[in-house]
């Protein structure tokens, strides 16, 4: 494991500037993350260690996640508590400017309608009637609210296909891809084989960009891998040179997705649904670094 690890360790950290906006639901249903890296210093190559051919094949895989777009649904308990707190705050709160204006206006109206109304006195106090009272403003605001249509929280009422990025908007989803490894086609995180001369992070980026019919723009957060999966090949395939493979996982976030994700090879799944697609030993390692927030 000498070569790639040492190079990764020696790579100086690039100063990064990230700007993440989380506004309301947009068409893409994806949070926009823009990353501007200032002066990514060139990778320093230390004195080359002896290139011993290790018997493990190296792969770099990327765990691409789509961040949640809206907040999660509340539990019944959370709902009750929120209502209770809201009620308490309302009872303890003071009147705002607008509410005070409303009260003053209504008092003025009642005084006007009383018999002993002295308009000169009133106007001296208040400096002339205002043309728009607070009540009128409130009415106009209510009208506007009626015209406003909020977007639906749950877009997959009809059951969006699993391949769509705009599935469960309240949770974070992971990208799964069907690839042929050895003789079988299995679902796994997109990966690519490591070639000499590149860092494992670049391998992961390459694995992501080499996916057919997709172009996901991802932001990698750091140079450190978040997990490893090591497996040995079945005995028939094993030779002296390659005993097995090691897969290094890197985390990335989807910054701008593409709309051509209706095809089968892709799958966006929640953490709880991973079990149905990944093999158990693989799942065990992957589960460790996917946060269920």
């Amino acid at each position, binding site marked *: 494991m000498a070569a790639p690890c040492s190079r990764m360790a*020696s790579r*100086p*950290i690039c*100063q*990064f*500037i*990230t*700007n*993440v*906006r*989380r*506004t*309301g639901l947009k068409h893409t249903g994806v*949070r926009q*993350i823009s990353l501007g890296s*200032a002066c990514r210093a060139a990778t320093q190559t230390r004195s080359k260690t002896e290139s011993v051919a290790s018997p493990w094949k190296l792969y770099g895989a990327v765990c691409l996640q789509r*961040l*949640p777009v*809206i*907040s999660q649904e509340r539990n019944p308990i959370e709902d009750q508590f929120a209502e209770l707190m809201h009620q308490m705050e309302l009872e303890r709160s003071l009147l705002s400017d607008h509410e005070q204006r409303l009260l003053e206006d209504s008092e003025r109206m009642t005084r006007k309608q009383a018999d002993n109304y002295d308009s000169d006195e009133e106007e001296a106090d208040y400096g002339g009637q205002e043309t728009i009272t607070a009540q009128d403003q409130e009415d106009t605001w209510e009208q506007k609210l009626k015209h406003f249509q909020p977007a639906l929280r749950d877009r997959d009422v009809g059951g969006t296909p699993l391949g769509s990025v705009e599935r469960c908007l309240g949770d*974070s989803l992971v990208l799964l891809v069907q690839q042929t490894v050895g003789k079988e086609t299995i679902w796994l995180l997109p990966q690519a084989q490591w070639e000499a001369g590149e860092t494992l992070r670049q391998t992961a980026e390459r694995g992501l960009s080499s996916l057919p019919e997709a172009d996901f723009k991802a932001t990698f*957060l*750091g*140079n*450190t891998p*978040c997990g490893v999966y090591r497996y040995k090949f079945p005995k028939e395939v094993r030779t002296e040179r390659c005993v097995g493979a090691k897969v290094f996982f890197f*985390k990335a*976030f989807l910054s701008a997705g593409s709309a051509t994700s209706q095809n089968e090879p892709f799958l966006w799944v929640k953490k709880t649904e991973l079990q149905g697609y990944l093999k158990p030993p693989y799942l065990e390692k992957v589960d460790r670094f996917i*946060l269920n*927030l």
Partner: protein
Amino acid sequence: MNPVIRKASFALHSRVLDQAGLLFRASVSVQHPIQGSLAFSNERQYRTMPTHGIGKYKHLLPKEAPKKKKERQQMKQIKTATDAEYGTLNVKVSGYDMILVEHYSQYIHNLCNRLGVKVAESYALPTKSTEVMVMPEQGTKMYVDAILKTHERIVQLSQLNATLCPTFMEVLLKNQPEGIQLSVKLHTEADYQARFKARPELEGLMAQMT
């Protein structure tokens, strides 16, 4: 015989009373300096008096440095990035809803404390008000529709470990509330200077000087 004895006894009694009175007065006069009244400050106790220096304690306390006046605020040293750590980073949280902004910035601060990331400073920038003006279909005059206030809070981190960074950022991004913008930047001196108010008279005088 009796009156003589009586006189003698009376004299004895009176002498005893006198002495008692003297003692009493003496004890009274000794108590007053202990109570610390200024009127008796010129009544110094003799060093031979056994209670001399009773109540002194300042010599037992550790020496305090003399209190100096508050110096002018200096800028904290901006740390540079090393191989394993980032320099001084500014995590800026901004949005329209003050409750969410404040709670989120508090969450970030607490998270840093928990993870062991050192928080250099945590401050707020002044609120910016944006007036939304609407132009009606008839007429050209625009009228004010609403006033939106943008609140900003900054949490300044000093030594963020490069291995911890991806996890930290992920937790932050996954817990970001709706309507809140998060931005992570390097801290510069310009950022520091932007917090201060402009002093027009001073600038005018400086311009006159040069």
